[in-house]
């Protein structure tokens, strides 16, 4: 039988401490609110993506049904449930950026990296994410988010520089 709780086996003590921090911010009946930060913590500790086991562990640790974790992890594009490259590149293709030429930026990235949106380079360096929602940089489009950092008013040259500097 399961002598040890899944969350104690799969999540590090440090991760659990971080989740505790988030849990402390919400009342007991609203503990589900800690799910998104907890999933981030688990994802960050696992090379940028979530496994089923990690989602189960997070749900168990928070004390909610695992289906809640699956829903959140598959709903938000900031979570990945398949292995990803070391860097995540999210190019905004929402309307403002599209009007500013984001399609060209996407085409340029795809050509330069030799992959399509949603794919990862063979050397596991970069994943080009399919971004569904506006990334809130409309005044400075086209723009993209690389590993959480905003890069605005993109040109192909600027994109090359950014991508080349990724390890």
């Amino acid at each position, binding site marked *: *039988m399961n002598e040890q709780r899944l969350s104690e086996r799969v999540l590090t003590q440090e991760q659990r401490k971080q989740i505790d921090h988030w849990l402390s911010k919400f009342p007991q009946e609203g503990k589900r609110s800690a799910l998104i930060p907890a999933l981030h913590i688990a994802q960050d500790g696992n090379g940028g993506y979530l496994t*089923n086991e990690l989602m189960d562990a997070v749900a168990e640790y928070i004390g909610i049904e695992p*289906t*809640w974790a*699956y*829903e959140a992890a*598959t*709903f938000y594009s900031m979570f990945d449930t398949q292995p990803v490259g070391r860097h995540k590149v999210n190019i905004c293709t929402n309307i403002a950026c599209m009007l500013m030429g984001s399609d060209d930026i996407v085409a340029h990235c795809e050509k330069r990296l030799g992959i399509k949106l949603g794919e990862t380079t063979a050397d596991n360096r970069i994943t080009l994410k399919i971004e*569904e929602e506006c990334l809130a940089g409309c005044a400075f489009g086209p723009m993209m988010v690389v590993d959480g950092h905003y890069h605005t008013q993109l040109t192909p040259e600027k994109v090359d520089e950014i991508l080349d500097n990724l390890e």
Partner: protein
Amino acid sequence: MTDNAEATNPETVTIEVDGRELEVPKGSMLIEATDNADIHVPRFCYHRKLSVVANCRMCLVDVEKAPKPLPACATPVAEGMKVRTRSERALKAQKGVMEFLLINHPLDCPICDQGGECELQDLALGYGRGVSRFTERKRAVEDEDLGPLISTEMTRCIHCTRCVRFLEEVAGTRELAALNRGEHTEIGTYVGAGVHSEMSGNIIDLCPVGALTSKPYRFSARSWEMLSHPSVSAHDCVGSNLQIHHVRGAIKRIVPRDNESVNECWIADRDRFAYEGVYSGERLQAPMVRDDSGAWQETDWETALEVAGEHLKGVVTREGGDALGTLVGPTATIEEMYLAGRLTRGLGSANIDARLREADFSDQDRSGTFPALGIELEALDGVEAALLVGSEPRWDQPIVNHRLRKAALQGGAIMSLNYRAQDLNYPLAAERVAAPADMVAEFAAVAAALLETATGRQAPEGLDDLLAGAQVGEAHRAMAARLRDNARTAVLLGQGVQAHPRGAVLRMLGTLVADLSDSRFGILTDGPNQAGAWLAGAVPHRDAGGQPASQPGLDARAMTEAPRQGYLVLGAEPERDCWDGAAAEAALRQAASVVCLTAFVTDAMREYAQVLLPVGTFGETAGTYVSAEGRWQSFPGVAQPVGEARPAWKVLRVLGNVLELDGFEYDAPDAITDELAERCREETPSARVEWLAPGREAAAEDGLYRVGLVPIYGGDALVRRAPALQRTRHATEQGVRISAATAQQQGLADADRVQVQQGGHSTVLPLIIDDALADGAVWVPAGLTATAGLGPMFGPVALARA
């Protein structure tokens, strides 16, 4: 929702809908107001028993002064609100929503199982466009296997999320999720875990489209060719109300019939899918008798009834009336029980019993009218505290569990004293796990805890003997306090008390605890009709009408332990249905004459019986069940009996005539029902057992002790033969369960399979280490094929590595 609003705020507001003035409770939603006024507003996601999400947008209506159409399901009523549900703006909005819903929905109704009874199809006809303008590609969704009961065709899903909400809010198992988003939204488990709730079939009814359909029923009939008749579930003492859908007498499926006081609009999977057993290959097709060499021969009814009559008459003539015993199975109707009782007594025997799974009858003369629930099912929703003793309602009476869950979610303290930790879909306020030998002392300790604070109440004589040295602990005091300090409380005993060798003492303690804490007291009985058995005279100590019998006969256990020369078996498989299956089988084998009225024939039956008479099952027989609440519920015979089978009441009537007994002239079952009802008029239900000082029991011997309760899909012959239910996890994951400590002590920690030995009988079963169990308790389910013919449901047992 409405109820709460009314209770806390009795005011109403006046609104106008389609020109009609309506007085509606403040705080209710528009759709509740229109539903109550019979004004139809189309909807998919709204369901009165589920939370409001307003995600389908189908119920858009035109509200005066609102800038846009508003969803009726999520718009609270307000004074003076003027609503038009059929204005041009409303219709245009509904038409627009419908067009979007149909964008990704296949337009191939003729090949969909839901076709003809589909809410989307109906509303598309009423509210949609005639022609689709959508020429782009539709999306397709891969189907997921949710288990043996529910079929999926997820491409048809319109994401109303009723299934997700039902499982979360009602079934208490959030097994389905709305995954991904936008156009990619899918309903599923994500990990392929399947849906295992004991109430899962309700999502088939809730699904407004053909995405979730019944796997056993799928593609076997069309809704417009079926007739629908009311019926009552034959599998627990709740008596859930059903509709049988059949085609020319062949049952196709079972759906719930709304009855707010019993099952609301839900039924358990057992109620829904057990009908499959009706068409089992083990049905007895024709009457059978033995020829001179002892070989079985099919024969006609007349001959078979003659032979049956000769056997029964022969036994009582040769050996006297007392040589005959009648065993009545769990699903018999009161009409059958009444006739069987009169027939048995007419032959000079008082040995008749339907309490096949009980062990202790010593309180039967001190008991109330019948083992009643003692509280209305509806009132269970609102209990502030309830103590379950030896009862696992989630598996035994799923609707009772559903109601207790509602109470628990409102803060009610549900507590359990049982042989294993409960596996529940709500939190328990207190729980004690006790080995069978400690059960009496544990329960007595709760009574003693109540006595500590009861002023002016003396401990009844002999309570100390029941405590047998056990100390009242904090846990007992906590349970006692919850019962004592709350107003709406109940003490409910289950099959773990009924089958306990000291069941009488436990029932007496239940009465005492309920008295001391001013709680309702009741028993969650076995099968659908235990109450009926007590009223119909299918017990040895009560005549029909519940009057004490002048000459009590032998109870079910005595009839198997002191074998009779002749047996009449009505709808039972004694080797599986009796408390001591081994003793029952042995008794039947040694008897000279065994006449079985049975729907199914087993190998054991072919060996011990002399006459086999095929009778109708659930759906094929008209009759009445009396639920534990005391509710008499009659139902018609709907299905054509299989083969030569006849309703058992008719068989008993003719048998009565063959035996030349008086008063067996009935034309219809209601004549029997009315006659019996007339005799039961005085009776008020009560399961109370008056106190009688018990003697001190010899201390139980140390060692392993069987707890052999009946699992959810093992209770009666029909459900045991329902293939889909038998493929569920609840049925397949059966085995011997012991705690890790017990396994360690027995040297079985690493064994996969064990041999279970009871008396001279043994069987081999998978071993499951389960720390929910009390140490020393060995969980060996009763009622299964693998455990048929083992010894008592409760008793010493030995385990050996297999």
